[in-house]
């Protein structure tokens, strides 16, 4: 089971309200969140499919703007589902990640330089002396 094209269109409309285009970044739909983004999302989070289908059924024939406002006010759990799914799919987009200069939680080996010694930073703490209460 997957999402129908009508459901995807509705998801795109809601997603663009959360993440419109701006600051040189594409909108959610321009980034493909309702297409391959959603497919990628549901591949790793298949548990989200049924809740999303239920949510989109509720949104059918409603104004996306009004529906989203109602969710935000009255149904934080359902809004939370969208608020996880939309950026979740958006930030899987490789172009978006490239524009952010974000290469994931990549490995960045520790620089062995002792940066706590910069500018006598630590000496200031040492000079203030002990701050603990000793064992009476």
């Amino acid at each position, binding site marked *: 089971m997957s999402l129908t094209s009508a459901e995807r269109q509705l998801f795109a409309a809601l997603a663009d*309200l*959360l*993440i*419109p285009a*701006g*600051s*040189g*970044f594409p909108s959610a739909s321009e980034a493909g969140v309702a297409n391959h983004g959603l497919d*990628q*999302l549901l591949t*790793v*989070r298949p*548990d989200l499919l049924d809740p999303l289908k239920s949510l989109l059924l509720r949104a059918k024939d409603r104004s996306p703007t009004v529906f989203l406002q109602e969710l935000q006010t009255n149904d934080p759990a359902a809004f*939370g589902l969208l*608020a*996880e799914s939309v*950026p*979740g799919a958006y*930030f*899987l987009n490789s172009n978006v*990640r490239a524009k*952010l200069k*974000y290469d*994931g*939680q*990549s*490995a*960045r*080996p*520790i*620089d*062995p*330089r*002792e*940066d*706590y010694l*910069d*500018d006598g*930073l*630590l000496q*200031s*703490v*040492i000079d*203030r*002396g*002990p*701050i*603990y*209460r*000793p*064992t*009476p």
Partner: protein
Amino acid sequence: MTEPDPDVLIVGAGPTGAVAAKRFAEAGMRVVVLEQGDWPDYSKARANHADFELTAGRDWSANPNRRQAPSDYPIDDSQSDISAVLYNAVGGGTVIYAAHWQRNMPSDFRVRTLDGVADDWPLTYEDLQPYYERVESDFGVSGLAGDTAFPPGKGPPLPPGPLAPMGRRVARAHNRLGWHWWPAPNAIATRAYGPLKPCTQRATCMWGCVEGAKGSVDLTHWPQNIKAGVRLITGARVRRLNVDSAGLVTGAEYVDRQGAPHFQRASVTVLGASGIGTPRILLLSDSPKSSNGLANSSDLVGRRLMMHPFGTVVGLFDEDMQSTHGLWGQHIHSLEFYETDPARGFVRGAKWGLQPTGGPLSMTRGYPWGDNPIWGTNFHKNFRERFARSAMWGIICEDLPETENRVVLDPVLKDSDGIPAPKLIYRMSENSKRLLQFHLGRARESLEAAGARQVVTAPLIRETGWHLLGTTVMGNDPATSVVNAWGQTHDVSNLYIFDGSIWPTSSGMNPTATIAALSLRCAEHLVENRRLQKVPA
């Protein structure tokens, strides 16, 4: 040929059991360990995949009620201000902990004497100091000796992680304010160390360390313990301890993953099943002679639950803080407001740890950002202000013991083996509330002094009960405590408890350092006195 009964049975393969089993095995004792979980499955650790942020919360959730793995038991937290989080596996809580390695301070052991509240511990910082040093070597702790918040002594074996831009900025601010900070201690290898590989700063420590750099005892202890002859039985859920006519514990009844019952005999039994699991087992082990549970003549088993109310304050900066990455973990810590100042209107204090804020999806979530809007027209502007430009103080508040905050057996809820589940009854005290509000305010000042353009105080969330302490209190008087200073129960001389349950007060520190040191101290005492130990016939 029948195998001889083990000298020691340990329940729980978390840090308590790992440290104790190591010491017992070194002393040549026969050791069996029962663990209801399995080995952690690091194939589910996806820090090196694009979907990490989407899958981490599902596969590495710290809340057993959410995780619902076969190894988990449910916890009724409907009457608790805080939900308990724990991990049932070889490694226990260290599999998912942030590895903040904080010793307690001397005053933590003398709360009654110094502050007139709660109880003193039947030991001092100085008693525990050599054990801290030994376990820090075993866990591959990184940090720097000479912290002015602690008495002088040997430091951890590995150098500290970098301060990083966020740490340097806040450190300078604290120097201007005259406030304490120090390169933070972490059980995270900053260089290759024994079985640990060097950390690569993915900031994913709590959701499956793909590098094998975190000092979790499934890496630092269990493979070596097994080589040393310790027998570790996984998928073994203890449902009660049995006692003979002489009042000595004979061993544990447990259920395997297929539901089959077993009995493991032993000369001595040690519980290390957490501040919830340990009292649960004792309460389940009732008998005609002890109808309110085993080792419970004081009626204190399950009582005095402490869970460390937790606060978070985030600063947003104009410059790149590189805060998608780092040690999670902590880069610096501050104990400036740890000690009691009566003028503040409460007693005791809190430890602060400065952490990164993570990847892009973490910038959009309700925690730690609360109701601060991100969606809609200004999404990209709001997002860029947070992403890689933020740093957060995590605040561990000391929680004082109260007998009405407790773990009981749920009258209805049961685990998958039909064993009554634990229920938490816990209300945050007025002292804790005041303490938390004070520290949130000072942490805001810290980040403002560091130049934050905006400071966000995170909403309090329920799922922060990482530190489960106090439910089988340690003391010298059998009328007011469950175990003595060596973890031996007053009522049953061959039954011991070594885990965080025995803490008389909670300190305001992440507890694993002290849990490990205390377990080693208790284990060593048992080894040294084993010839005097009464055992069942």
